[in-house]
C-alpha cells in the first residue's frame, strides 16, 4: 500500500519535472482561450467546460468563432474532423501498451492531444511507466481547463475591452509549424500545405480550413502514387539492367 502510494508520488514528480513547463504553457494558453470565449459574449463557465470535455486546443479556438457565428452543425462536424484528422496518426506510435487498466487506457486515448503525443511518443517506451504517462496527460488536461476557467473569470470582468487576444492562436500555430518543420524538414510538404492554404484563402475564404486540408490530402495521395510509380520504374529499370 505504502509502496504503491510512493510510486504514484514519484511518477507525479517525474512527470511534473519533465513536462511542467508545458503545463504552465497550456495554463497560459488556457487563459487566452477563456478570454477569447468571453470576448465573444459567452458566459465565463463555457471555456472551462469546452476545455474539460474536448481537450483539443487548436480546434477549440476555431469552434468558438463558429459557435458565435451560429455555424451549421454539419460545418462544425466537418471542421472538427479535418482539423483533428491528424490525430488518426498519433495512435500509430503512442505507447498505449504501457498504460495499465481499461479505464486508464480509455482516459489516455481521450486525452491524446498534440502536446501529450509530442511529450510521450518522443520517449523510449521502455522507460515510461503507466503512472508517468497518465500524470503527464492529467497535468496537461488540468492546466488547460483551469487556465480556461481563470481566463473565463478574468476575461468576463477585467479584459472585456482588450483587443488582439485572438493573436495567441496565430502565435501558437506559427510556433507549432516551426517545431514540426524542425522535426521533419520536408520542404515539399511545407510548400504543398502553404500553397493549399493560400489557394483556399483566395478561392473560398469562408471555408478556408476545409478546402485547404482536403486539397492537401488529395495532393498527398497524388504525391504518394507518383512516388510509388517512380520507385516502381526504377525497380523495373534495375531488373532490366540486371537481366
Amino acid at each position, binding site marked *: 500500500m505504502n509502496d504503491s502510494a510512493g510510486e504514484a508520488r514519484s511518477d507525479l514528480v517525474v512527470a511534473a519535472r519533465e513536462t511542467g513547463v508545458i503545463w504552465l504553457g497550456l495554463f497560459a494558453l488556457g487563459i487566452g482561450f477563456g478570454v477569447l470565449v468571453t470576448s465573444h459574449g459567452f458566459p465565463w463557465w463555457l471555456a472551462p467546460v469546452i476545455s474539460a470535455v*474536448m481537450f483539443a486546443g487548436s480546434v477549440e479556438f476555431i469552434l468558438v468563432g463558429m459557435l458565435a457565428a451560429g455555424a451549421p452543425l454539419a460545418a462544425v462536424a466537418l471542421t*472538427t474532423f479535418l482539423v483533428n484528422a491528424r490525430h*488518426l496518426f498519433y495512435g500509430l506510435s503512442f505507447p498505449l501498451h504501457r498504460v495499465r487498466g481499461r479505464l486508464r487506457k480509455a482516459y489516455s*486515448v481521450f486525452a491524446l492531444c498534440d502536446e501529450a503525443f509530442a511529450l510521450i511518443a518522443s520517449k523510449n517506451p521502455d522507460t515510461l511507466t503507466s503512472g508517468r504517462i497518465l500524470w503527464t496527460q492529467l497535468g496537461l488536461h488540468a492546466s488547460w481547463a483551469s487556465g480556461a476557467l481563470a481566463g473565463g473569470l478574468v476575461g468576463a470582468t477585467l479584459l472585456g475591452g482588450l483587443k488582439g487576444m485572438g493573436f495567441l492562436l496565430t502565435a501558437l500555430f506559427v*510556433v507549432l509549424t*516551426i517545431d514540426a518543420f524542425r522535426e521533419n524538414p520536408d520542404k515539399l510538404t511545407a510548400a504543398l500545405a502553404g500553397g493549399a492554404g493560400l489557394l483556399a484563402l483566395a478561392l473560398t475564404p469562408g471555408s478556408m480550413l476545409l478546402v485547404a486540408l482536403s486539397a492537401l490530402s488529395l495532393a498527398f495521395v497524388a504525391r504518394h502514387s507518383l512516388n510509388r510509380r517512380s520507385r516502381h520504374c526504377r525497380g523495373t529499370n534495375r531488373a532490366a539492367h540486371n537481366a
Partner: protein
Amino acid sequence: MPDAGYIAAALAIGVAITVALRAIPFGMKALVRESALLHDLGRWMPLGAVTILAVYGLATIDFAGGQHGVPEGAGVMVTIAFHVWRRNAVLSIAAGTAVCLVLANLAL
C-alpha cells in the same frame, strides 16, 4: 448568444469526432501499418496540417483595419525571432502575444 441547445449539440459532435479520431488507430493498427498510403500520410500530415493552421491564423490579421495589422505583424515577427533563438514554445508565444497586445491596446 446562440441558444444552449445548439451549443450543447455542437460540443457533443465535436467531442465525439475528436475522441473517435483518437481511438480509431488503436483499433486498426495492423491494417494501417500495412497501408503504404496511410504510412505516407502519417509522415506528411503533421507538418502539413499545422502549416495550414498557421496560414489560417495569419489570414485572420486585418490589414485593412485601423491599425493595418501592425500589432499582429510585429507579434508574428517577435514570435518567430524568439522561437528561432530560444526554441521555447511558451516563451515565443508569450513574447509575441505581449507585443501584439501592447501595440493593439496602448501604442497606436
